C-alpha cells in the first residue's frame, strides 16, 4: 500500500515525458519533493503540468504513458 498517491486533478491523456523525444520526468525509485513536476495531462489540446503534492520515493506509475486518465485517478504512488 502506497503511503501517498498523487492524483490527476483533471481528465485527459497522461504523459510521463515533457516531449515525445525526451526522457520521463521521473522513474520508479526516484525521490520526489512536493512541487516537483511528475507528469503532464493533456486536456482538450491544452497541456498541464502535474506537480507532486507529497514527498517520497516513487514506487509505481499505475497508468502508462500516453494513456487516458480520469480526474481523481492516481498517477504516481509514493512510499
Amino acid at each position, binding site marked *: 500500500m502506497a503511503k501517498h498517491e498523487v492524483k490527476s486533478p*483533471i*481528465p*485527459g*491523456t497522461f504523459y510521463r515525458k515533457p516531449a515525445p523525444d525526451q526522457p520521463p520526468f521521473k522513474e520508479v525509485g526516484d525521490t520526489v519533493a512536493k512541487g516537483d513536476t511528475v507528469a503532464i495531462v493533456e*486536456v*482538450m*489540446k*491544452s497541456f498541464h503540468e502535474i506537480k507532486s503534492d507529497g514527498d517520497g520515493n516513487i514506487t509505481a506509475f499505475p497508468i502508462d504513458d*500516453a*494513456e*487516458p486518465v480520469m480526474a481523481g485517478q492516481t498517477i504516481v504512488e509514493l512510499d
Partner: protein
Amino acid sequence: MKTGNISKLLIANRGEIAVRVIRAARDLGIATVQVYSDADKDSRAVQMADETINIGPPQAAKSYLDIEAILKAARDTGADAIHPGYGFLSENAGFADAVADAGLIFVGPSGDTIRLMGDKAAARAEAKKANVPTVPGSDGVIGDMQEAAKLADEIGYPVMIKAAAGGGGRGIRIADSAEEFLSLAPQASSEAKAAFGDGGIYIEKVIERARHIEVQVLGDGEDVVHFHERECSLQRRRQKVWEEAPSSALNENVRDKLCASAVALAKSVNYKGAGTIEYLYDDETGDFYFIEMNTRIQVEHPVTEMICGFDLVAEMIAIAGGAKLRVSQDDVAAKGHAIEVRLNAEDPANNFMPFPGVVGELLAPDGPGVRFDHMLYPGYAVPPFYDSLLGKLIVWAEDRDKALLRLKRALGELQVDGLATTKPLFEALLESEDLRAGKVHTRWLEPWLENNLNRIKQKEGSNS
C-alpha cells in the same frame, strides 16, 4: 438517390462538424457512416448516423488519425466516399492519396493540391505566380546578414524574423531598426538551429494593425466561384473565437479585388472542392496580403452560408461525387450580415481552462435568423481528449447592428448547465465600443481580455 458517384459517405471526424456533414449528406439523399473512438460512442453524430463503426481508443493518434483504421471502416461498411471534416486528417495529403488508392472518393482536393498549398513557401510562390499580393519579405531563406539588413530597410521596419523550419509562433523575433536586426537575426538563426536543427531564417514585414480576412471558394477542377469574404480578426493565441461575414472593413473596390485574387489563385491550381484563402488586411493602406490557403471546409463556414444562402458542405460533396459546380458566380449574392461565436468548453474567467464535464439542462437558442450548430444534449459527457469546441452560435440580420442585437438575444436564450463555456466572454464582448464599431485587429482581443476580466467574471456570475 445517388449524388454523382456517392451513395454512402463515411465521416472521418467527430463533434459538431460530424453532425453538420451528416445533415448535408442526408439533404442530398446519401447514406452516412459515422466512425467513432471509444470516447465517442455516445456522441450525437453516432446517434444520428445511419451506420456507425468503432475505430479505436480515445487517443486521436489511435483512432481519428489512424488512416488504416479509417480505410478498413470504409471497406467494412461499403462506404464509397470519405469526408474528412476539419482538423484531424483533413489536410493530410497522404490520407487523400490513400483514400484515392483504395478506390474511394476523398471529399476534398487531391493529395497533390493539399501538398502544394500546405507548403508555406510553395503556396507563397503559387500566389505570386497568380499575381496575388504576399506579405513583403525575403525570397526564401536569407544568407548574408548585411544584405538582409538592406532588404529589411527597403521593406520598412518593424520586420519579423522567422525560422524557416519553425511554426506555431516559435522562433519569431521582431526588429524595429537595422541595429536591432543585426543583433537579433543571428540570435534567431542559432535558436532555430538549436530548436529545429535548421538555422534558416527569412524576413517578413510586420503588418501592425492587420485584420484577418478570408475568401471562401468552391472549385470543380475547372471553374471556381467565390462566396465573398469572412472577417476573423478576433483571435486568442491565434485561434479564432468570433467570425463575421461580410467584413465591415472593406469597400466595394477592395472587396472585388480581394475576391478576384482568391478566384485567380484557386483557378491557377485547378482547385477542386471547398477552400479558403486567408489574407491579412492593412486598414491604414487598404492593402491585402495572402497568408495561406486552407484546403478543407472551415469551422466558420456557416457565416458565409447565412449571407449567401448555399449549403457549402452539400456542394463540396456533390463536387467530390463528380458534379460540375451547380452555382455560377452570378447566383452568389451576399445579403445582410452574419456573426458566429465559438462556444468552447473553457472557463474564460480562469485563463480559458478547459472544462470537460456532463451537460445538465440545455436550452438552445432559436427564432428568426438564429442557427446553432452543436453536438450537445442533456446528459452528454464531453470527453477530454479532443478540442473544446462544443458548437457555434450563428446569427443573421439585415445589417451588422441588427446582427449584434440578435446575437445578444440568442446568447440570452442559450443555457448550457454543467459546463463552463465561453458564453460569458461573448456577452462581455458585446459591451465593447470598439467591437461594436468594428475597430478590431488580430492583436486586439488579447489585451482586451486582460483589461476586462472583471466584466467576464460578472457575466459568468449572472449566468450561474
